């Protein structure tokens, strides 16, 4: 019996929800631990940076990496993992598409620092101090990671082999992904380890979708109404990202009477789910030729935040690779 394959689980700019999803494998986690040797998991085990550097190149079979890249430490750890792991799987919406933190790309870095450290109402900072990469202190230099200009998805920083989307990804998809790696039953590199269909195709409310699909404004938001628990959200005038979003999530939000927020990212072949959704919404909205579309459009609060909630860093306008214009390479 050979040595068990080594596995690394690591987070970059992440909330820990993806790690929680791994924990949610429950007893299944014991099966995973039986089949592999978990060498690195900062959320659950003791971790020092040296633990990672001590591995040889390609020594780890697979690295499950969650979180986006926003500072130089994220970038450095991502590159180190790429070097030490034979396969890298981007785990969760942040690693796959930049995730919710990606909406920070709609503000310049200086604006963010200024708001957070100087002008926010709760801040008391009379000297206007802002974190520095290096600060002299007691004869020594204290160092912090550099805050980058942009939020990056993992594959905009390092080469990524597979993607498991979701916020968080369902434990079942993680289990299947790890199993596929262990049994060498993998699709072509770059694939997303989730179904290829749109959410609508597996949605339990699909049967209530009218034959002639039209949305008669105004658009309603889920917190403003008591939604019918069986009715297609869009047909009911409630925005739902289902048509532009990949399925595989188990429709958990839909079953909790909440419309899709798009955390599984675009369906295959679509790079910009927001613009795809805008185009289809424009076609579906019925305001009459004498009506004013502005009133309907105005009823959609924060369309950018809604349409690009998880995907701004991979969108047409927001996509950038680390090292491109503006960015100092850390």
């Amino acid at each position, binding site marked *: 019996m050979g040595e068990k394959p080594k596995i690394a689980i690591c987070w970059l700019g992440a909330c820990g929800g993806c790690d929680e999803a791994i924990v949610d494998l429950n007893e299944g986690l014991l099966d995973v631990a039986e089949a592999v040797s978990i060498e690195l998991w900062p959320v659950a085990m003791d971790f020092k940076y040296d633990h990672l550097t001590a591995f040889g190149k390609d020594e780890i079979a697979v690295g499950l990496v969650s979180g986006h890249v926003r500072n130089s430490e994220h970038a450095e750890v991502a590159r180190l993992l790429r070097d030490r792991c034979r396969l890298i799987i981007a785990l969760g919406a942040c690693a796959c598409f930049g995730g919710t933190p990606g909406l920070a790309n709609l503000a310049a870095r200086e604006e963010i620092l200024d708001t957070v450290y100087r002008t926010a109402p709760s801040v008391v900072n009379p000297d206007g101090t802002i974190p520095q990469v290096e600060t002299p202190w007691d004869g020594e230099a204290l160092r912090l990671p550099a805050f980058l200009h942009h939020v990056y998805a993992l594959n905009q920083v390092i080469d990524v082999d597979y993607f498991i989307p979701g916020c968080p990804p369902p434990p079942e998809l993680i289990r299947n992904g790890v199993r596929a790696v262990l049994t060498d039953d993998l699709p072509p590199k770059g694939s997303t380890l989730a179904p290829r269909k749109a959410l609508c195709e597996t949605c339990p409310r699909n049967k209530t979708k009218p034959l002639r699909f039209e949305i008669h404004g105004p658009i309603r938001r889920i917190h403003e109404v008591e939604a019918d628990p069986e009715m297609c959200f869009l047909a009911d005038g409630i925005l739902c990202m289902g048509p532009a979003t990949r399925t595989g999530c188990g429709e958990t939000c839909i079953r909790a009477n909440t419309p899709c927020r798009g955390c599984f990212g675009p369906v295959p072949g679509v790079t910009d789910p927001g*613009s795809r959704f805008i*185009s289809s919404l*424009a076609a579906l909205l019925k305001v009459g030729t004498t009506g004013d579309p502005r009133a309907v459009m105005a009823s959609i609060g924060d369309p*950018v935040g809604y349409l690009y909630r998880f995907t701004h860093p991979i969108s*047409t306008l927001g996509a950038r690779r680390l090292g491109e214009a503006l960015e100092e390479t850390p």
Partner: protein
Amino acid sequence: MGYEPKLVCFSCKFGWGYLKDPNALREEAALLTPVECSGRLDALHLLKAFKEGADGILILACEEGHCHFQEGNFRTLKMLYLLRDVLQAHGIDGERVRIEFSRDPEGRTILDRITQMKASLSGLGPLDRALL
């Protein structure tokens, strides 16, 4: 001086310049792209144009009630209202996208309209690409 705004113009083939040789039109305006219907435009086309360097976009659509595909022109107008919010969030002023509903089979006014829009784009200056 010397700033020449890059204007991408999409024109509906049914209402605009169909009596004119498309190559001749393109010689006059390099970034003119005839489309089968203004409703054929996807939000993605407009975003890509900005991402790849456009300073502004002019859409020449058919008059109200004259769309060959019933209401492609109106659909594009609705799409633009939604898209404007997306553009503004990225620092792209709504003035940088204009849609005109009219008809000009011989394409006599296309060049003038492009020149006019370029003039107003010149007033806005080059697009700030800090967030792109």
